[in-house]
């Protein structure tokens, strides 16, 4: 295995990860909610009274993050390699499957494993597995 040492950024990875942990900790200890983006979004499709505001507030916080960052520092570069068509297919699959499987990288991957939930550990292994496989097929077999 070849490791990309030039782009491997352990310190920002650790501090960024700690921030994700702190955000999830705040959310469960103060709001009593799991910081799982799919679950937060899912509730908005079947809106119930007094159950909308906190969901929208969390999402607004996410969207505002780069804008808040930009007020003090230059934003890092982002690079989306996928074509628009591939993004559409990818988005559709992610939308349907994360609701079907009750979670994504935040809900199962971060919060679920932190809760030591067997369900989330299995879900995380499943999506990591097919994630690795998909990139292998796209990049090395089909060589798109």
């Amino acid at each position, binding site marked *: 295995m070849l*490791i*990309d040492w030039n782009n491997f*950024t*352990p310190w920002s990875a*650790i*501090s*960024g*990860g700690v*921030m*994700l*942990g*702190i*955000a*999830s*900790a705040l*959310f469960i200890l*103060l*709001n*009593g909610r799991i*910081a799982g*983006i799919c679950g937060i979004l*899912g509730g908005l*499709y079947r809106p119930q009274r*007094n159950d909308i505001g906190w969901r929208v507030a*969390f999402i607004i916080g996410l*969207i*505002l993050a780069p804008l808040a*960052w930009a007020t003090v520092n230059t934003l890092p570069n*982002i690079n*989306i390699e996928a074509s628009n068509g591939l*993004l*559409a297919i*990818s*988005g559709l*699959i*992610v*939308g*349907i*499957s*994360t*609701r*079907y*499987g009750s979670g994504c990288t935040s809900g*199962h*991957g*971060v919060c679920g*494993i*932190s809760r*030591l939930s*067997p*369900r989330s550990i*299995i879900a995380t292994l499943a*999506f990591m*597995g097919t*994630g690795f*496989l*998909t*990139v292998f097929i*796209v*990049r090395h077999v089909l060589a798109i």
Partner: protein
Amino acid sequence: MKKNLGQIYSLFFSALAGLIFGLGLVLAGMANPAKVLAFLDLAGLWNPSLAIVMGSAICIGLVAFSIAKKHTRSLLGLPMNLPTSRIIDQRLVLGGLAFGVGWGLSGICPAPAFVLLGFGSIKGAIFLGFMLIGMGIYELIESYRNLEKSKTSAAITNAKKSES
């Protein structure tokens, strides 16, 4: 009056949690789909960053959730909504497997999709739009299936009624 103040606190801390979560993703480089794909590409030049991000997030999470499990109410007095299901079924596994395929195609998952919108990325917005449509399709299928289920159970009850 007191109730309203509680609601305002709850909204404020929700937004704050979302903001810190988003800033964490930007700092960790996980808002950048190319870096996520570099983690998923084991056969290429591998970038282990994502594993370190998840690992350090989980370290904090382990402490927070072990505290949360001991309480029925949050610090704001809200009910502690911890998932209770322990069933490992087809939905969980198939959903997870399919999510990995979608994720691997673009390197974008739901939280970074919103952060990318904040970056003003048009490609990010395309992903986000289709993801929201996908969730809508799921809801439509679910409500159709529930309708069918309730029809069958209603038919069974009616049949039982006419028998007796």
